C-alpha cells in the first residue's frame, strides 16, 4: 500500500489547481472558458485510453481533477460531459468520442425520469423501430449542465432491451426545459415526442448496456465524491479563516471551544469522506457488483459528511453565511446538489444494505 501521489500526479494537480484557481479568482465565472482551457490542457482527453485518443489517465488522476473542480467551485461540466457521456461513448467504442475530445461537440447523458428517483435501468422512455430507424418517446429529468448545443445520450426501453440513443443537438421532437439549479449551474428536463433517429444512433449492445451504464455511472459517482471532498476542504478552510478574523465578545470566535470542537468534527467528517473514497477507488477494478457497493458506500458517507460540513460551515459563519456574497453559501449549495446528483444518501445506503453490508468486502 502507498497513498502518496506520484511525481506526475503532483504536477497534474498543480497544473489543474492553478488553471481553475485563476478562473475562480475572476469575478465573473465563465464556464465556457474553463471548458476551453480544459480542452487546451488535454484534461478532456485525460481519462480516456490512448488508443481512443485519450491520455490514459486513471481514476486517481480523475480524482485529482475533480478535487480541484470542487475546491475552486468550477462550473465546468466535466462530470457530466467527460465522465458520464464521454465515458459511455468510450465504453461503447463510438467514434463520436473524437468530437468530444477535439471540442467539436459536447455530450450529455439523460439518466433519470420523472417520479422514478434513481431508477435509470428500467426507463419508461421507449423506442420503437420504424421505417427511418427508431422513434423515441418519453421524458428525462434533471440533466445537469445541458444546453441546446449538446448532443444527448438517452437510454430507452425497447423490445430488444435497453438501448442508448445518441441524439444530435436540435433534433426535431426534443424539447428542453432548462432551469437554474441551486448551485448556480443549470439543469434541464427533457421531453421526447416521437423523436426519429437512424439505426446507427443506437449505442452499444442491448444485452450489455446496463452493465456499460453502471460502469460509467460508478466512475462518475467516485469522481463526484472527489469533487465533494475538494469543496468540503475549501469550505472548512474558509470557515477557519473567518473564525480567526471575526470578533465577538472581545475575542475571535475561533477561540471559543464549542466552535473549535465543531470545526474539529468537520475535519473528522472530511477525513472519513476521503478515506471511504480511497476505498472506492481501490475497488474500481473489482467485479462489477463489488465495485458498485464500494462506490455506494463512498457516496453515502460523503453525503453524510457533506451535509454536516455544509450546514455547520454556515452555522459558524453566522448571519454572513446566509448571504450570497459570502463564498461559504455557494460551497454549501454545490455540496447539496452533489448530494442528490447521482443518487442520494437513502439510495446509496440501501444499495449497500442489499449487498449484505461491507464486512465481507
Amino acid at each position, binding site marked *: 500500500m502507498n497513498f502518496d501521489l506520484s511525481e506526475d500526479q503532483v504536477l497534474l494537480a498543480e497544473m489543474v489547481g492553478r488553471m481553475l484557481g485563476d478562473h475562480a479568482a475572476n469575478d465573473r465565472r465563465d464556464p465556457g472558458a474553463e471548458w476551453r482551457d480544459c480542452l487546451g490542457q488535454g484534461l478532456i482527453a485525460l481519462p480516456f485510453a490512448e488508443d481512443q485518443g485519450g491520455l490514459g489517465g486513471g481514476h486517481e488522476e480523475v480524482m485529482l481533477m475533480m478535487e480541484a473542480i470542487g475546491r475552486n467551485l468550477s462550473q465546468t461540466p466535466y462530470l457530466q460531459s467527460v465522465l458520464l457521456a464521454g465515458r459511455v461513448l468510450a465504453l461503447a467504442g463510438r467514434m463520436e468520442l473524437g468530437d468530444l475530445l477535439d471540442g467539436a461537440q459536447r455530450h450529455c447523458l439523460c*439518466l*433519470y425520469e*420523472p*417520479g*422514478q*428517483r*434513481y*431508477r435509470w435501468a428500467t426507463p419508461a422512455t421507449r423506442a420503437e423501430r420504424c421505417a427511418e430507424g427508431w422513434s423515441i418517446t418519453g421524458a428525462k*429529468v*434533471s440533466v*445537469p449542465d445541458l444546453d441546446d448545443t449538446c448532443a444527448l445520450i438517452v437510454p430507452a426501453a425497447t423490445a430488444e432491451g435497453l438501448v442508448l440513443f445518441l441524439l444530435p443537438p436540435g433534433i426535431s421532437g426534443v424539447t428542453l*426545459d432548462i*432551469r*437554474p*439549479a*441551486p448551485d*448556480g449551474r443549470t*439543469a*434541464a*428536463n427533457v421531453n421526447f415526442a416521437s423523436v426519429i433517429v437512424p439505426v446507427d444512433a443506437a449505442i452499444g449492445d442491448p444485452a450489455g448496456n446496463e452493465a456499460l451504464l453502471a460502469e460509467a455511472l460508478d466512475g462518475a459517482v467516485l469522481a463526484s465524491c472527489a469533487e465533494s471532498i475538494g469543496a468540503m476542504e475549501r469550505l472548512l478552510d474558509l470557515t477557519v479563516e473567518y473564525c480567526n478574523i471575526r*470578533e*465577538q*465578545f472581545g475575542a475571535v470566535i475561533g477561540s*471559543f471551544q*464549542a*466552535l473549535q470542537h465543531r470545526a474539529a468534527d468537520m475535519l473528522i467528517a472530511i477525513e472519513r469522506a476521503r478515506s471511504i473514497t480511497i476505498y472506492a477507488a481501490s475497488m474500481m477494478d473489482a467485479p462489477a457488483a463489488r465495485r458498485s457497493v464500494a462506490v455506494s458506500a463512498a457516496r453515502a458517507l460523503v453525503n453524510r459528511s457533506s*451535509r454536516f460540513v455544509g*450546514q455547520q460551515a*454556515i*452555522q459558524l459563519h*453566522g*448571519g454572513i*453565511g*446566509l*448571504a*450570497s*456574497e459570502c463564498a461559504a*453559501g*455557494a460551497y*454549501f*449549495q454545490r455540496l*447539496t*446538489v452533489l448530494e*442528490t*446528483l447521482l443518487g*442520494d*444518501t*437513502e*439510495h446509496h*445506503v*440501501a444499495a449497500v*444494505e*442489499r449487498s449484505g453490508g461491507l464486512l465481507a468486502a
Partner: protein
Amino acid sequence: MELQFNEGERAFREEVRAFLLDNIPERIRQAVYEERPLPRDWMIEAQQILNSAGYAVPHWPIEWGGRVWSPVKRAILAQEIDRNSVPKPLPFNVTLIGPIIAAFGTEDQKQRFLPGIANLDIWFCQGFSEPNAGSDLASLKMSAIREGDHYRVNGRKIWTTYAHEADWIFCLVRTSREERKQQGISFLLIDLETPGVEVSPIQSIDGFHHLNEVQFDDAIVPAENLVGEEGKGWDYARYLLGQERTSMGNVGFSRRRLERSRALAGEAAGERSETLLGDADFLRRQTWAEIRLKALEITQMRVVASAPVQGADPKTSILKTEGGELLQEAADLLLDTMGPEALTAGFPAGIGPEEFYGIDERSGILSAYFSSRKYSIFGGSNEIQRNILAGSVLRLGRKR
C-alpha cells in the same frame, strides 16, 4: 394538573380554525404552504383579515386591540395560524415594536403608531444587528447625537428582514459612550423615507431577497421618535425577551412541514419499497421528527401555562433551539423527498421568484432548506442559547 385542552380551549380552537379556513384566501394559504415568498399586498391583506377578528394582536393591552385570552388560548391561535398556512402577523410589528411602544412609548406615540402597526398599515422592520455586533449585540456602534429637537444618526444595520418592504425601522442606537457597553443605548423609531437612509439588498443563499443592509448618513430624526428614556434601549430590548412565548417553538410551522414531508414521501418512489414513506430509513426519521414535535408541543404548552419567569426563562432557550432544529430537520426531510428532481424543481436565483410559481409545487423546498439554516443563527444563535442554559440554568463553571 390538567394535561389536556379543556372544553373552552377546544371550542376556541375550532372557532379559530373555522375562521381561518373561511376567511383567508386559498391562494395565500397555498403560497404559504409551498413556502413561496408572499407579495407585500398579500401579507397586508392577510394581517388585516386577522386583525378584523382580533387575531393579530391579542397579547396587546386591551385598549389597543388586545384580548383577555389566556396564554393557552393565544398559543392555540398561533399554532392554528401556522399549521393552516396562514401568514403570521408580522412579528416585527406585533411582537416586537408594538409591545415596546405600548409599554414605554408616549401617549402620542401610541396613538400615532399602534393602530397602524396592528393593521399593518405601517410596516416596521428591526434594526438591531450591525456588521460587528451579531451575537455580541451590545457592541453596536450606530450613533444618534442629540442636536436640539432631533438626533443626527450615523451607522449601519444589517440582516434587516423586509427593510425593502417596510415603512419604518426601529433601531438600537448609541446615544452616549459608557463604561459598560450595554449602557448608553437608546431605542429610536426612524422613517425609512428620511433623507440619508439607504436600504440595500442582501441576496440570500435561498435565492431570494429578504435581507438588507440599512445605511444611515447624517439622517435627521425628530427627538419625539425616541422611545422611553435615553440610555434605556438595552433594557427595552431585553424586555421583549420571553414576552411573547406563545409561539416561540414554531410548533405549528414544524407540523405543517412534517405533514408535507409525510405526504410527499407517500407519493415519491421508494428505494426499497414502493414509496419513499415505505422505506424504513425515511420513515424512521419522519417518525422521530413527529415524536420530537409532540414533545415540543408539550414543552411549548408548559412554557405558556407557567407563570412568566423574571429574567431569562430557561425553557425559552430550549423552545428556541428545539423549535429551530425541528424546522431544520423537517426541511432536511422535505429535501430528501425530492431525489434527482431537486435539481430542477426550481430555484429563483438570478431570475426572480415569479417565473417559478406554477412550474412545480415543490419549488419552495430547496429555498426552504437553505434558508432554514437561519433558525439556529438569528435571534440568539444556538450556541448562545446553550451558553445561557449552561450558565444561567445549570450554573456550570460557577462555584457555588
